[in-house]
């Protein structure tokens, strides 16, 4: 009897636990499948709304346009608020946004924008020049409001709105980027109530008043950002009713969500890995978009960190101050191998500083000037510079010690590590050691100038001013204790002269020509060696998105565009309409199944208790 009891009681308890678990699973599983095929989740919610869901990995830092600096947050601001100008999705040239036209005075110091009269805030008020003037003035006078976009107004002397459709910006000195002010214009009547701009995150009261193609209607930190279509948007309403950004911290999980149809689009951060792209290529209803990217991937050399006051700091290797050494190092980098082996073909070999997708500004060296892969020439250059090999085959510096370069790499970027291994091999053959310093946070040693070389990369905007500005002497920190806007402490007089010229050149063709001269100068200096232009590899479900605008229109990317073109233009695929009610059907069936199972369990347990009651007593 004892044995019987022993056998019975534990398994009995266990069985109950197991069955209860199974019932719970069934109950919740009923929410999805098989009656609720997942792809419809992204396509249409219960009420038949067309919802476009985008997988994102980055957290929103702030939903205040005065504070946000991350790509996701600023992309959302592009959707919420209209900027003065936008970029043509075909060729990136500036086109009307909130402003319909703009012109400068003969002395190049006053810009007048005509503000459109058909843009209304989502609370019904008219968007006017007064809103734009207030936005810029706030950034010019309140340090909290200058956090994110303060650099745009650094050269502004005065901003006024003489009439509701006229905005006047007076400059301290000429500035060619006045049609590329990527600043969200906010409604004055809403924002003037904010008391502390450094702490207001714009994420509590929904819907948030805006005049872009979408209106922010909900946000939960690290869960989702929800936007609904602005039916009154002056350019026309988006075709999807809702746009949802959902968080997937793990990129493989995001790819799984795309396969299942839980999301319509996944871009990765910043790109899908070659393995993910390959695995998605054969999948049903999924299209992989392998587009020329807007980023460059480079090796930056420490040119001897110094501040504007001339004070030197950091500990960059002195041999790198010799241009021949820098050129030799670059000549010993097999860029084709990097494209094939590291990027697996999802990149283009690097040349000039600005990627080829920005055709107006793209520059590449002529064949005779190109620093092509040539290890023998690299060795010759090093010999010539006086860095000869010792008896152990190691090249020694002027101090007689073998040269080993410290290369800063991002611990989270597998490309850095892979290329780093190749550098160890290629430069090792030259007799130069490489020590990879892979860190989660590379900023600190970088700002302190405590590195020899570093993996570097920037996204380039349609207007290249920013990525050019970070190599001017003016971007250096004021003192070693301060921060500058410099990328890696490059300071070259000739480059600076060219930079100043392009900034005051209002003729686009002439300006492009000067920009190319700057790239040429940068190439010769050899402090920035562009190895590749990685592609933007992303994927979307064709059974949810029928069509979507890429930028540039011909073979361009979708995520992180300059403008709102992708999500504004996306056309939903025909859902067939049959699955609209599937979600609720799934819930009902799941609940019924769960109740039946729980009921059965209860009856079963009761019968078992009755059967053993006598024995127990």
């Amino acid at each position: 009897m004892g044995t019987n009891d022993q056998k019975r009681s534990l398994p009995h308890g266990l069985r109950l636990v197991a069955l209860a678990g199974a019932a719970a699973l069934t109950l919740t599983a009923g929410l999805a499948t098989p009656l609720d095929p997942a792809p419809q989740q992204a396509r249409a919610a219960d009420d038949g709304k067309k919802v476009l869901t985008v997988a994102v990995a980055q957290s929103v830092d702030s939903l205040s346009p005065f504070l946000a600096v991350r790509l996701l947050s600023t992309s959302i601001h592009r959707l919420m608020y209209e900027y003065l100008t936008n970029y043509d999705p075909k060729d990136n040239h500036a086109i009307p946004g909130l402003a319909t036209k703009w012109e400068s005075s003969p002395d190049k110091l006053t810009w007048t924008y005509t503000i459109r009269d058909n843009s209304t805030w989502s609370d019904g008020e008219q968007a006017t020049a007064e809103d734009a003037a207030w936005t810029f003035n706030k950034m010019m006078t309140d340090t909290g409001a200058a956090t994110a976009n303060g650099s745009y107004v650094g050269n502004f002397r005065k901003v006024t709105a003489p009439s509701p459709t006229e905005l006047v910006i007076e400059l301290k000195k000429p500035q060619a980027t006045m049609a590329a002010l990527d600043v969200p214009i906010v409604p004055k009547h809403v924002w003037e109530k904010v008391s502390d701009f450094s702490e207001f995150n714009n994420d509590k009261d929904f819907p948030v008043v805006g005049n872009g193609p979408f209106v922010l209607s909900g946000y939960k930190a690290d869960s989702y950002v929800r936007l609904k279509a602005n039916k009154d948007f002056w350019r026309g309403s988006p075709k999807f009713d809702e746009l949802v950004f959902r968080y997937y911290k793990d990129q493989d999980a995001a790819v799984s969500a795309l396969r299942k149809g839980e999301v319509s689009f996944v871009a990765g951060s910043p790109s899908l890995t070659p393995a993910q792209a390959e695995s998605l290529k054969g999948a049903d209803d999924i299209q992989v978009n392998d587009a020329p990217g807007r980023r460059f991937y480079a090796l930056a050399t420490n040119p001897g960190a110094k501040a504007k006051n001339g004070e030197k700091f950091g500990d960059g290797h002195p041999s790198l101050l010799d241009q021949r050494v820098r050129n030799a190092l670059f000549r010993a980098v097999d860029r084709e191998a990097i494209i094939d082996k590291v990027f697996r073909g999802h990149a283009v070999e690097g040349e000039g500083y600005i990627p080829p997708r920005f055709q107006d500004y793209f520059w590449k060296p002529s064949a005779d000037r190109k620093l092509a892969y040539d290890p023998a020439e690299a060795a010759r250059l090093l010999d010539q510079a006086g860095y000869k090999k010792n008896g152990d085959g190691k090249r020694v510096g002027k101090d007689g010690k073998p040269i080993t370069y410290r290369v800063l790499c991002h611990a989270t970027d597998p490309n850095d590590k892979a290329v780093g291994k190749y550098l160890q091999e290629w430069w090792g053959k030259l007799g130069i050691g490489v020590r990879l310093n892979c860190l989660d946070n590379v900023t600190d040693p970088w700002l302190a100038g405590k590195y020899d070389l570093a993996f570097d990369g920037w996204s380039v905007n349609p207007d290249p001013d920013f990525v050019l500005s970070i190599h001017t002497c003016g971007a250096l920190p004021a003192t070693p204790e301060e921060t500058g806007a410099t990328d890696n402490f490059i300071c070259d007089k000739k480059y600076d002269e060219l930079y100043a010229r392009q900034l005051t050149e209002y003729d686009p063709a002439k300006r492009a020509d000067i920009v190319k001269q700057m790239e040429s100068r940068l190439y010769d200096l050899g402090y920035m060696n562009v190895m590749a232009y990685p592609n933007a590899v992303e994927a979307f479900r064709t059974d949810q998105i029928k069509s979507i605008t890429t930028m540039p229109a011909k073979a361009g990317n979708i995520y992180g565009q300059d403008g709102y073109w992708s999500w504004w233009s996306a056309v939903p695929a025909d859902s067939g309409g049959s699955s609209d009610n599937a979600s609720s059907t799934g819930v009902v069936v799941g609940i019924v199944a769960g109740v039946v199972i729980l009921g059965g369990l209860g009856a079963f347990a009761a019968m078992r208790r009755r059967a053993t009651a006598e024995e127990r007593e």
Partner: protein
Amino acid sequence: MTADATPALVEDKQQTAPGPRVRKSSAYPRYLAGKVAGAAVSLLAVLVTSFFLFRLIPGDPVKTMTGGRQVSAEQLAAYREEFGLDLPLWRQFTDYCGKALTGDFGTSYQFRSPVVDKITEALPNTLLLTGTAFVLYTALGILLGTRSAWRHGRLGDRVNTGLALTLYSIPSFWLGLLLIIVLSVGIGPLPGMFPTGGMESGGEEGFAYVLDVAHHLVLPVVTLVAVEYGQTLLVTRSALLDEMGSDYLTTARAKGLRDDLVRRRHAVPNALLPTVTLIFINLGRTVAGVILVETVFSWPGLGGLFYQALSVPDLPLVQGLFFVFAAAVILMNTLADLVYPLLDPRVAR
């Protein structure tokens, strides 16, 4: 083993039980005061550590925050002042301690909102996930551990311990990804049943919201339970095995008590002490969340927040989270210390 020796032991046990209880009146308060004081000192140590430890990370947080952007010297100074970084270290420390004692851990650099807000936003999510998993894996571990020990050496025991050890040694993120592929996306005839990540679909309300969250909860909980229950199982099993040779159990059987009563009423309570320790330690850990599982399933909890805070580094957020994590463990360990004497009065002697 003689029949007359056993009753004596049992009697001993019965006699000793009231003994300490009488003595407890004098020993327990002292014991309690000692433990509480110890916890307070530990908390203070954590407060000090959390301040200085993260300041050992090289670099200037303001520079890190603004790196790559055009920031004027005035603006940098404004930031330093805003975050109190312009003050001497000792002032920063006293300010930090003073505010921390009132529950104010400052403002997050990257999110521009109070640290307490960020923590209270993510804490319930973490507690829901790890709390549910905790209840399940503790129950499952004790249940299976008891069963394994009681029938040790048999096939059931071998399968149980083998499976528990295997699952315990599997990396949780790998198991999570596997579950996503099999149960979320679906393989072959097996349909995808659960969401691939997140805590909610968004936009649901009322009961639908509860169901939606439950639906999202299943896979991360299953992953956590699968990986964690083995530890409880093994501890319970080995503790019970130690008890099983005891004479009082033979006596209990000899009195004619049914086997499951002997196990439940006599053996298990006596064997539970190590398991209780483990339970409290695990309970403390539930607050910290499980970074890898939260990452794989994109669960918006404290684990993910801690990772984000560290990567900046967002000092106030890192400090606040570190303090909360450590405080939870200290609190739970202290509670465990306070509960032991109730389970085994000899502890407080």
